[in-house]
């Protein structure tokens, strides 16, 4: 009888752990658009764009003068680049994973991920 209780307890605990893990995984995906900022191949910052309440900006150093990145709820852009070509600044805001922002001279990449962001796509050709 005592054993039965222990096993029930173990089973319930395991169930709870699995359920919690499952919810965490789902919760992390549903409705969120997460921006990942890479510099020189390293992930330097991750931002949940859906949780941004006040717009803000920050700088990322890079070999061509670095970049200033601006964040608002649901979207992100490069507002200043130290390099001459300014391709990343001209690209403007992105809010989904269709086209990443890339500043080659500064080795900067901004990718937005999340299920909702790409309409359940595995990737985009373009």
């Amino acid at each position, binding site marked *: 009888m005592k054993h039965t209780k222990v*096993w029930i307890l173990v089973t319930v605990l395991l169930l709870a752990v*699995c359920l919690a893990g499952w919810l965490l995984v789902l919760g992390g995906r549903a409705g969120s658009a997460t921006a990942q900022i890479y510099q020189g191949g390293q992930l330097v910052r991750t931002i949940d764009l859906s949780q941004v309440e006040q717009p803000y900006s920050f700088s990322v150093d890079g070999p061509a003068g670095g970049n200033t990145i601006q964040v608002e709820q649901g979207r992100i852009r490069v507002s200043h680049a130290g390099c001459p070509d300014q391709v990343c600044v001209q690209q*403007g805001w992105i809010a989904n994973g*269709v086209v990443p922002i*890339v500043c080659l001279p500064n080795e900067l990449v901004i990718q937005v991920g999340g299920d909702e962001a790409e309409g359940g796509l*595995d*990737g985009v050709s373009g």
Partner: protein
Amino acid sequence: MKHLTLAALGLALLLASCAPAAQEYTATLLAMDTVMELTAYGPEGEGALEEAQALIQELEGLMSATDPDSEIAALNRGQTVALSPPVRELLDQALELCGATDGALDITIYPVVRAWGFPNKQYQVPDPGALAQLLERVDYAQVALSGDTLTLPEGVELDLGAVAKGYAGDRMMELFRQSGVTCAYVNLGGNVQALGASPDGDPWRIGIQDPEGTSYLAVVEVTDRAVVTSGMYQRYFEQDGVRYGHILDPDTGYPADSALSSVTIVSPSGTLADGLSTALFVLGREGAEALWRARDDFDFVLVGQDGTVTISEGIEDGFALQGAGEDYNLEVVRR
């Protein structure tokens, strides 16, 4: 004992439901003038990704026209070069595509590309007289590939930019296969290539970028395919209110003017998909359809400036206009 069995059964069920999906390994790197995302699934994925990154660096070092140490740069300086196996193999495949498209793809267009300033981003509209002179040097038939060394005729210069990423995709799929990876996805600056089916067993769902905006306009479902798109929106400059795109017509030396906004090629071969996406953009709708009827190794999605999306029948199943594409008309070309 009975309780134990029950508990064990419960545990097994729990473990089954909690089992993580196949391990996913990803890498992001800047190479070949673009951003590359690599994803491989399963226990062999981690090591295979390391090798794949090394492979990209190796190929870039051999093939970049702007890197003075590359084999292509040496060829373009007029040197006799003992070709490495990858350069030899890609030149073979690329020259075949140049022939098959009757020069709509021409890997000797580099002098013209340089005159427009695309490689160093010092954009300018070349003088028509100068352009006409440069065009005389453009003809892939001048590249006589025999044996393992190559010397280009004077003034002839190669640009593998229209096929190098596609070839890199093919080589990566081969590497993944040899490493025991059965499920992988790479996006090489918009060149998508997938090994096998997606991790959940369904085909990969690949969006096609809307040439007019930042969203996508259609979805195509593929297994074991490259999906490569070419369009002027990818690289262009503006001068005096005119937009000049980076896909040059080897016949005229000017940006291709074919009434298309983008061309997507779906094929088992990345090199073919890459090269034909450029060639079909130059050829336009009629030329594209004619080439498709003459071959059986690719399908296409043509986005017209008139708001029509034309696809070939091989990708009709699983194809859908979506997002920005709902305003377009869909046409299916059949054999």
